[in-house]
């Protein structure tokens, strides 16, 4: 009897730990399912240059998705990231253009600071006002973009006004890997370790899982919520600065509509939209998957008018498959565990 129960229980444990991993694995498999056929049709798709491009394309959305994950895990959402990115990108570019001598790090730091300020505002409104973040950040989505427009006055900063050091950053590589991708990877790793292994990181999951209980457990909910928004803003600021490095041309509209892409990446990456579970790695992979799908459709020469519909359908199937997988595992968990009491 005991032997049966305990073996059942270890099976259940294995399953439950696997549930978490399978999600990321699922995205990797989906990635393979997208990449391999494309590569067979067009071998150029897996040449170094185009792999680099895939990673580069995904890296900005992936960055935003990392920040977004922190927020979503706490049962909040930050819809203003596109606008924050836009504001930060424009101000960073403007700053470089106006002060040609600015050291690279300082200029990027400026962009990060802009993002941080926006995130702080979001965080203060959500945490102190104790109001739903979706509404607050939908509001600041408009406000930040409006401020961006007002500051830009229809102007544009072009590559020729930007320092070469910055533009080089957009295309530089270390051991064949683009620097932007490396920066993104560093951010992902730091965030992943933080969420997995630090008390305050775990507290974010607790908050998202049961906000009331989090307060009762003595978790400083407001402070943590504020922190996640600041971090999300900060990362969006960084992404803005990198956007400048990557695209070289910036006007006030940079990053418009990006928020839905980011939320989509996060969801595809297996982060529960109502908080409590999900990983930054998953979210970043989600961003990579979505970016890869877009590229594949072009490479496969799918007619332009079909591309958006197919991308949408693939996004839907990704979350559907993920859900079906989760349901199966839950059922397996139930039947393998049985009763837990003596």
């Amino acid at each position, binding site marked *: 009897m005991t032997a049966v*129960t305990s073996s059942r*229980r270890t099976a*259940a*444990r294995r399953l*439950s*730990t696997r549930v978490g991993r399978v999600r990321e694995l699922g995205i990797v498999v989906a990635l393979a399912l997208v990449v391999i056929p494309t590569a067979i049709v067009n071998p150029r798709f897996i040449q170094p240059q185009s792999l680099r491009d895939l990673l580069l394309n995904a890296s900005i959305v992936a960055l935003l998705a990392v920040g977004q994950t922190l927020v979503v895990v706490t049962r909040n959402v930050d819809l203003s990231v596109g606008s924050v990115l836009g504001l930060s990108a424009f101000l960073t570019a403007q700053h470089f253009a106006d002060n040609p001598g600015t050291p690279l790090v300082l200029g990027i730091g400026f962009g990060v600071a802009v993002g941080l300020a926006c995130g702080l505002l979001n965080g203060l409104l959500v945490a102190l006002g104790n109001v739903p973040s979706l509404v607050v950040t939908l509001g600041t989505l408009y406000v930040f973009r409006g401020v961006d427009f007002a500051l830009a006055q229809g102007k544009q900063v072009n590559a020729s006004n930007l320092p070469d050091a910055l533009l080089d950053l957009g295309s530089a590589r270390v051991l064949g890997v683009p620097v932007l991708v490396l920066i993104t990877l560093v951010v992902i790793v730091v965030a992943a*370790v933080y969420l997995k*292994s*630090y*008390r305050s990181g*775990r*507290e974010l*999951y*607790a908050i*998202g*899982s*049961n906000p*009331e*209980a*989090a*307060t*009762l*457990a*003595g*978790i*400083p909910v407001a402070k943590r919520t504020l922190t996640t928004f600041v971090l999300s803003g900060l990362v969006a600021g960084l992404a803005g600065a990198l956007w400048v490095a990557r695209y070289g041309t910036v006007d006030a509209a940079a990053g418009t509509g990006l928020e839905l892409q980011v939320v989509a990446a996060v969801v595809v990456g297996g982060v*529960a939209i109502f*908080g*409590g*579970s999900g990983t930054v790695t998953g979210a970043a992979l989600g961003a990579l998957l979505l970016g890869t799908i877009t590229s594949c459709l072009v490479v496969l020469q799918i007619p332009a008018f079909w591309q958006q519909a197919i991308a949408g359908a693939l996004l839907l199937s990704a979350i559907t498959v993920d859900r079906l997988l989760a349901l199966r595992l839950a059922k397996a*968990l*139930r*039947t*393998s*565990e*049985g*009763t*837990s*009491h*003596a």
Partner: protein
Amino acid sequence: MLVTQALKRFNIEETDVDRPPVVALDEVSKSFGAVRALSGVSLRLLPGEAHALLGENGAGKSTLIKTLAGVHRPDAGQVLLDEVPQRFSGPADALAAGIAIIYQEPTLFGDLSVAENVFMGRQPLGFGRRIDVASMHARTSELFSRLGVRLDPARPARGLSIADQQLVEIAKALSFDARVIVMDEPTAALSAHEVRRLFGVVQALRAQDAAVLFVSHRLNEVFELCQRATVLRDGEFVWSGPLDDETPDSLVRRMVGRELSQLFPKEDTTAGEVLLSVQRLTREGVFTDVSFDVRAGEIVALSGLVGAGRSEVARAVFGIDRPDGGFASVRGKRLKHGSPTAAMAAGIGFVPEDRRQQGLVMDASIERNTALASLGRLSKFGLLRRSSERALAQDWAVRLRLKFSRLSDPVGVLSGGNQQKVVLAKWLARKPSVLIVDEPTRGIDVGTKAEVHRLLSELAGQGVAVLMISSELPEVLGMADRVLVMHEGRLVRELSRAEATEERVALAAAGQVDS
């Protein structure tokens, strides 16, 4: 001299003034809008004692505890720790001061592992201040074994039964090594087995000079565990003193302020036709091959240890979960699987065990909650008649002696017991022919409990078939015409009213069948 006078004033008996209290509340008052939940209540918790906090539903027990926990800030009066006044700005402060609380409603993080739930915010750290998962799991297992619980520390808390949740809460409180442990109805969802283990743990804590504040509506438990008690009535302090000279009756008198009649008045009825019949019902991994009948006029109790699968059977019968095999039928007509609507149409009413999640819409008003299961009956051409809705709620509020200020208040502001009454009202209003009640008196005070029992008995008398799931043995024995005992997902024993004794039920529940 002064001290004695003060004590007199507060009705505190003199025997225990010799030791300084670890925690004390001094004339604490707290109001929510017009509701005065506490007015000038004092309490002294001594090191090494188990102290019972007693009172009817809505007397202010949970409010007092939340004040102690720093959740509520008192309007007047103060909380003293080692005789030093404290100003807790939140639960974190109380925790830091060594006060661990088990709240009335479980407060777990469903997505996190059981171990993380236990150690949230205090996870053991390893290299580079990273969480040491292995040692966290080991320490959780250790705590569980102290409580006699077999739960995988790595499993998520989501999906745990109410009882398991309660046990995790207890483990969490123990893990604090706190000087003061407050338990707000920790045993409400537990059966005798777990209660025994819990009491063993409490004795061990007392031996280490920790103070335990214990809330329960089960007086036998109070006498078994506690040395002293404090009684509240309508937010007012009534009495505090040692339990040695008290009897259950005397305590009840202090709580209610009047004499109570007999507690379990199940009248004998002649059982009629079979109304509810369950045949070979199976849900993989949860319960197997469950068959039984409930007749008109009968109260059948489903007994067993926590996690035996009783609630799951009820859920499957009512159509919340889909069974993998078997079926249930009402008056011989098979019920559609997975459809509460069909079950209701067939005349089943179901009072679920978790009133917060399943029983009520917390933000909605009392009247709306009462009407929620009767919407069809209250409307004409799909349009709702508000006057009938209000009349319905008014009627049931009076019949169940609901304590409320306005019917339009959200049900969430009611005390736990009064919320339970609203759930009952909601289902009784449908006049069901089969009523399934899962822990119908969980968190209900003695007076109301008698009331609920009288109601169930009355319903049976009117020919309703009642299936009652209860973890409280006296309730089961007092109310049931027949007792079905479940063990690990199977029906193992059926006992008639005459056969059912505390011992037999307990043995069957533990999986041992006597001859």
